[in-house]
């Protein structure tokens, strides 16, 4: 419990600083992965070359994560026909809460489980929520480490630009 509190405090206080640090995978090929989905079949990132992909790393205890997943759900409804795919990657140790969230919310995109944190490590997740924009060639084009109204507007602008490429 103490460790958890420390981790949450670290995430909360370090978030503004994290937002400014450069992301090492930006402009690099997104690491491929295959993960179990809470509902539906397994998902492999490399099968979605040709689509713009949004990866959102989230935890069930993180309130902004939930708000962002709902915002991504709206974004997907708007841009799905333009070739957008959205995946939420859960990083909880205990998957029970993630499963409860998935069954309680009406998120239409696949929620993936990463209990061993292998994918989170390969994407160097240092903040929750953390959202990546991957272009049609499988290259990481941008990362958003803090979610708010301003960052969402910027994110949508970048997404539209990527979909138009």
């Amino acid at each position, binding site marked *: 419990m103490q460790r958890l509190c420390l981790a949450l405090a670290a995430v909360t206080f370090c978030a503004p600083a994290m937002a400014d640090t450069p992301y090492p995978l930006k402009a690099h090929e997104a690491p491929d992965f*295959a*993960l179990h989905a809470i509902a539906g079949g397994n998902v492999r990132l490399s099968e979605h070359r040709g689509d713009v992909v949004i990866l959102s790393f989230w935890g069930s205890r993180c309130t902004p994560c939930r708000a962002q997943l709902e915002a991504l759900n709206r974004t997907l409804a708007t841009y799905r026909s333009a070739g957008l795919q959205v995946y939420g990657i859960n990083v909880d140790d205990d998957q029970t809460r993630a499963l409860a969230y998935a069954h309680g919310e009406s998120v239409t995109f696949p929620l993936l489980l990463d209990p061993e944190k292998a994918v989170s490590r390969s994407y160097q997740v240092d903040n929750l929520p953390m959202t990546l924009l991957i272009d049609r060639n499988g290259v990481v084009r941008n990362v958003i480490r803090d979610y708010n109204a301003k960052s969402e507007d910027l994110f949508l602008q970048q997404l539209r630009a990527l979909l138009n490429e």
Partner: protein
Amino acid sequence: MQNVVRLFLVLACVAMPVAFAQAPLTAEPPPAAAADAAPPADTAAAPSDAVTPPPDTRGLDQEVQGLKKDVVDLNRELFVLEEELLFPANTQVAVFLSMDVGDFFALDSVTLKIDQKEVINYLYTPREVEALLKGGVHRLYLGNLKVGKHELVAFFSGKGPNDRDYKRGATLKFEKGIGAKYLELKINDRQRKQQPEFEVKDWE
């Protein structure tokens, strides 16, 4: 390191012919520039000359297509060469997976252990399962083993009959000789028992 060498070779192959292809174009002034350089008297005498035909780019396009094909061929050769270097025939072991019908088993993942050491845990996506059911064969693992006796254990996870979670294992003790070793994991439907059947086949 090998990937870097491969990338360098491919880039070199692309860059050189493109540079050569551009050289003749830059050596001559473009037709529009030539027309501008001509004295005004000529243009007045022959107005039809001022309308220059569009440059014929079909030849260049074909050349680029040919180059792309060469790059793909070269990449394939380099890939084969890389595999031959990393997995020489005297130590090479390859494990393939195939699936037939699939009425009684929906494949989710396969975990492979060789000599009690997990070498791969592969999750199959619905697209991959569909490809397997159409007759595709997936190379699940490629590695190196010493000559001698070895044991392979494969665990298959998925949905069995009546959509229940289903996990089964298959074991094979095999002897690795001097040549490459090919093993196949086969998933079949056993109609009589209404159950899936898992077997490991040694292709020598």
